[in-house]
């Protein structure tokens, strides 16, 4: 079993819908929770990250972390066709050697159709 589980989708929604993307994890030591967006044949782009439990909002994006359930979510409001991409969750238990090393989920493919 992978440390981070993420439904690969694809998730297809109409433009304007609220999208909910989720990940579960098994390592209770994870403290940092990140969401990346990856367009086809491009590198992952960090959307936002949170530390420990709670919510964080940035424009149309809201990240939620529930450490008691080992469950994190990314909500996208008013989804646009340009949001169509693969969304990867990633987690880190903090600085190991000299840096934070994330463990990624496999990504959820999102398709927003006009």
């Amino acid at each position, binding site marked *: 079993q992978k440390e981070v589980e993420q439904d690969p989708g694809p998730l297809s929604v109409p433009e304007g819908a609220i999208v909910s993307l989720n990940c579960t994890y098994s390592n209770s030591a994870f403290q940092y929770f*990140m969401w990346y967006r990856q367009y086809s044949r491009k*590198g*992952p782009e*960090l959307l936002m990250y949170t530390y420990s439990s709670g919510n964080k909002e940035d424009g149309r994006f809201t990240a939620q972390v529930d450490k008691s359930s080992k469950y994190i979510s990314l909500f996208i409001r008013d989804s646009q066709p340009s949001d169509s991409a693969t969304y990867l969750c990633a987690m880190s238990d903090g600085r190991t050697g*000299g*840096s934070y*090393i*994330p463990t*990624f989920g*496999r990504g959820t493919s999102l398709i927003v159709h006009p």
Partner: protein
Amino acid sequence: AAGVIQSPRHLIKEKRETATLKCYPIPRHDTVYWYQQGPGQDPQFLISFYEKMQSDKGSIPDRFSAQQFSDYHSELNMSSLELGDSALYFCASSREGGVEQYFGPGTRLTVT
């Protein structure tokens, strides 16, 4: 804004050959990470460098080596290439090993 630069973008090699991938981090970033992403897979961490010293090591094969130079650019050297090494190789950079990593566009390596 300047981003992470990787070269080459595409590389085709034969089995048992060697390959060198280069990464130029964002200016003033001192930490570089290397990841391997197979088709439909999540990025797997290979190795990282902070201030020119190896800081963390992941699932990097012994056939691979890497280093960070005085100008903070990094090179990933891959020898005795195998078909299974075909993948996207991403470099990312951050400041002082921070959580916010910025990824480059990747190098697509195909081993035939």
